[in-house]
């Protein structure tokens, strides 16, 4: 009985893990949905995302400063030199799978690169670009 309860509990945990583990497409959908609240016709564009990723936005760094111009390659922190694992899901399956991580890094890195938080449209474009890399 006890074993059954434990097994049941474990299965429930697995099921809830599977339910909460996000995929890159989930983030794309989420930010597109958010962007459409401001612009009903919005559709994410990998090309726009690529341009955004590679360009500077009035400050010292671009996304590519640390992540390098190739999101499938390993990056390097501009100040500390610490290696940064690839951003493109094709090269690093851990990317774009955690709400907490996606929200944290967009918030912080956009403030560093753009001087403000990114809009949902900007995030959707960048994610569309990262998902296109290597495919």
């Amino acid at each position: 009985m006890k074993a059954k309860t434990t097994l049941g509990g474990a299965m429930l945990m697995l099921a809830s893990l599977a339910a909460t583990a996000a995929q890159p497409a989930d983030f794309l959908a989420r930010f597109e949905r958010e962007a459409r609240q401001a612009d009903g016709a919005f559709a994410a564009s990998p090309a726009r995302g690529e341009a955004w990723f590679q360009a500077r936005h009035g400050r010292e760094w671009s996304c590519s400063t640390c992540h390098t111009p190739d999101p499938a390659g390993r990056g390097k922190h501009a100040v500390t030199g610490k290696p940064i694992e690839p951003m493109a899901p094709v090269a690093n399956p851990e990317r774009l799978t955690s709400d907490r991580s996606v929200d944290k890094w967009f918030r912080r890195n956009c403030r560093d690169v753009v001087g403000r938080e990114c809009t949902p449209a900007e995030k959707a474009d960048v994610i569309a670009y990262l998902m296109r890399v290597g495919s």
Partner: protein
Amino acid sequence: MQAKTTRDSRRNPVRLALFAAALALGAPAMADDDDDNRRAPMSPAYVEECGACHVAFPPELLSRRSWNAVVDGLAEHFGTDASLDAQALATVRDYLDAYAGRRSTDGANGKPLLRITDTRWFQREHRAGEHGLRADTFKRAEVGSAANCGACHRGAADGSYAEREIRVPAPGVRANITAQGRTQ
């Protein structure tokens, strides 16, 4: 440079007294290089939150006062936004509080130092000539910055700074240091 400081200390009884007091206070808590057994356990949360951009620095290298100042200023953390959500912030603060060094790491102006590399302990342990270091070692491309512990401390990612794990990169530089050492 070093000799001058010592002479000044000898001439100035107040400074000498302060120096002696600092030694006496600092010695028991000092993270000496032979002191590998006393290091704090690396917490996964600390490594995840603070070790993403730089090595998860050993918490004993700054005082609680210094760490609190660092944690309070994460939104402007040495030129980058390193802010954390409330829960992560509390976890990191608790960890640093529990394992902070016991001796003061206040600067000369009485304010807590924010950089480990600014502490007297760090500067003494990493002065030119020590462990094959040269004045320009930290600026070399292979090292980049004195905050890049792992460039020389091969176990830094795991929180290990044992003497036997130190490898200053670029054999050419090491050879130079050896040669200089012989001439002195």
